[in-house]
Structures are given as C-alpha cells and as structure tokens.
C-alpha cells in the first residue's frame, strides 16, 4: 500500500480573476490522519494560501464540513484511509456561495436560524424561583434535536436547498422543532407562522438525505415531518374551532 494519497482540492480565489478549479496535492497517508490533517499538511507544508475553516478537530464545533468525493462530510472526523488509494476530491459544501477555496458563505444560514425564533418563548409572566421541572422523558422528547452543531452538511445534502435558496432548510427547522417540543417553551404558534410557510416545512419533499449525512444523528428529516403533522393538526384545530385558539 502506498504511504501517500492524492488530494484534489477545489481552488477559487475571486481576486485573481480565475474560475474555480482543482489542484492536486500529494499528502502522507497515515492510519490516524483525518481528511482535515491532510488539508493542514497542505496548508502548513505545501501551499499556505489554501483557505478552509476548522477549529475544534473533535467533531463538535461544526466548522470543517466539506464535500469529500461528492458527499457532505465533517473532515475532522473522517479518516483519510477510508478513501485509499485515492485520489480524494475535496470541495466546498454544495448549495452555498463560495467565498474562497473551501470556504462558503454562511450568512444566509445564520439569518434562517434566527428567523425560526430558536429560544424559549414564554407567553405568561411565570418566572420560577427555581428550575422548571422537566422529567427525563420530557427531556428525551426534544434532546435529539438539540444536538445540531450547525455544520450545515444537511443543506449541502438537500436538493431542495439547492433548487430553492429560500427554503428554511433542515437544521433551522429541526431547531424550531426542538423548542416546540421543549416542555418549557410556549412559542409554538409564533414558530408555526414562520415555519409552516411554503419556504418552510412544505418545501420539503422528504428526500431524507439530510438525515443520512447528519454527523450527530439529529435526523432533521424526522423533525420536518413531525412539524408537518403538528402544523396540519393546528390548521384543522383553527379551522374547526376558530375561537379555540389558546
């Protein structure tokens, strides 16, 4: 087995007027190296101008998502060995505008995150002197959806996000759902108004790929389908009991 591997890395620098292209680098293939270690080898030893984001290198900060051989991947927790003998193609995440090399523009994603009101909304003035009681079962009800690290792999995997840039998208809807399911929250109506729009849950056609690529097993697809059910129930309720709004 060869002790090196070829990384074909997407390059794009808006300042040199060039079009996006791929550049090949030969990097050591070590058994405990992740794809990110390969990229860092390039940056440290071969070409310091390569731009990419990374930070925690332990799969929790969500910075280093990229397309690896066409699949949205967290590069800090994916072994280079998995792609031997190579070559491995590393590109910026699909469905996002590219700023430079492997860096994509996330402003739109952050705006969507804020739009779904991801915080505890209280309609009453109840301010308990101690904690809200929450049973382990109530915690379990939303816990999975609170594990999203905002790596945006799900957006890169979702063809709807690519076709309709206005789609609020998997991670943001999953986050809205996380607060809806939290026993401490009373903001479901506010979020329904925002998320049960066409660009919200109804844009999702259940491709399911978001849940496949999610490195934290959040299952955003599940969140969206459950949200659809909630929205439908609420719609029927408001239709049948117009004054029944609480």
């Amino acid at each position, binding site marked *: 087995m060869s002790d090196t591997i070829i990384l074909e890395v997407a390059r794009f620098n*808006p300042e040199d007027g060039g079009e996006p292209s791929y550049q090949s680098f030969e990097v050591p293939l070590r058994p405990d190296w992740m794809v990110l270690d390969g990229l860092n080898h390039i940056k440290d030893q071969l070409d310091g101008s390569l731009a990419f984001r990374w930070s925690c290198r332990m799969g929790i900060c969500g910075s280093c998502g990229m397309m690896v051989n*066409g699949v949205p991947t967290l590069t800090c927790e994916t072994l280079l060995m998995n792609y031997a003998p190579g070559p491995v193609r590393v590109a910026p995440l699909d469905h996002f505008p590219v700023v430079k090399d492997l860096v994509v523009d996330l402003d739109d994603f952050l705006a969507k995150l804020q739009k779904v009101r991801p915080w505890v909304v209280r309609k009453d003035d109840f301010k308990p002197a101690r904690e809200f009681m929450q049973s382990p079962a109530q915690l379990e009800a939303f816990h999975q959806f609170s594990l999203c690290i905002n790596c945006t792999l799900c957006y890169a995997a979702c063809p709807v996000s690519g076709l309709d840039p206005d789609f609020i998208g998997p991670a943001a809807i999953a986050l809205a759902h996380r607060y809806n399911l939290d026993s401490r929250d009373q903001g479901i109506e506010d979020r329904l108004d925002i998320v049960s729009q066409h660009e919200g849950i109804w844009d999702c056609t259940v491709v399911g790929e978001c849940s496949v690529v999610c490195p934290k097993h959040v299952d955003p697809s599940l969140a969206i389908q459950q949200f659809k059910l909630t929205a439908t129930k609420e719609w029927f309720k408001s239709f049948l009991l117009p004054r029944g709004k609480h």
Partner: protein
Amino acid sequence: MPQYTQYQPKEHRPKMSAYWYLDNWHYLRYALRESSSFFVAYFCVLTLVQLAALGTNATRYARFEAFMAHPAMIIVNAIALAFFLLHAITWFNLVPRVMMRQILARPTPDIISSAPNYLVWFGATIILALFITGVL
C-alpha cells in the same frame, strides 16, 4: 462572472445540474419515488376505465380484458406495479418518521410504527384474493 473589486466579495455560485437526481443513489431513489405518483394515477384511471366497461355491457368488458391481456399491456402494468409497490413501501416506511416516536418514554422501534399499515395491506390483499378465487 463579474470583476473582483477590492473589499467587495465576488462569490462563486455553482449552479445545480439539470440532472442532479443522477448525482447519487439517494437522489435517484427519491426521483423514482416521486415519479411513482404518475403510475399511481395511471392505475386509478385504469380502474375507472375498467368500472366503466363493466357498467356498459359484457362485450365491452370482454374487449377490455382482451386489451389487458396484450403482452405490451402486461409489461406496462408490471412496471406500474413495481412503481406502485415502491410508492406504498416508501410511504409506509416513512410513518415512523412522523408519528409514534415514543411509547412509555422509550423510543419506538421503526417496525412497530410501520407494522399497522402492512397488516392492513396484507389483510386487504387476502380478502380480495378470497373474493377473486371465489371462496367468499
């Protein structure tokens, strides 16, 4: 592409290919599942035609039967059936994606959520089969 001006980001916005659904198996399976609706509609129309023939007279129904026995129609219907099954199975399997996540604070195995659909399906199939074979 526009020219770069200093301090003004000039982002590259890749366009999705018109053939994006061929990009990977999951997308392709999705595209097939979506197109299965066409065959579901086809079956509905076919059933209506069959009912209309049945309601007109025996000759007309015999002609319908002869038409259905044509090898080309058998192939078409076999393909339609395959898509119909794909349609039914994918949607049945999606049930656990929307409901019955938890029974008694433990996550419900997917199979338990999907099972009622399959049970109803097989039950209905058996009753129909009994009808057709004349047992009922």
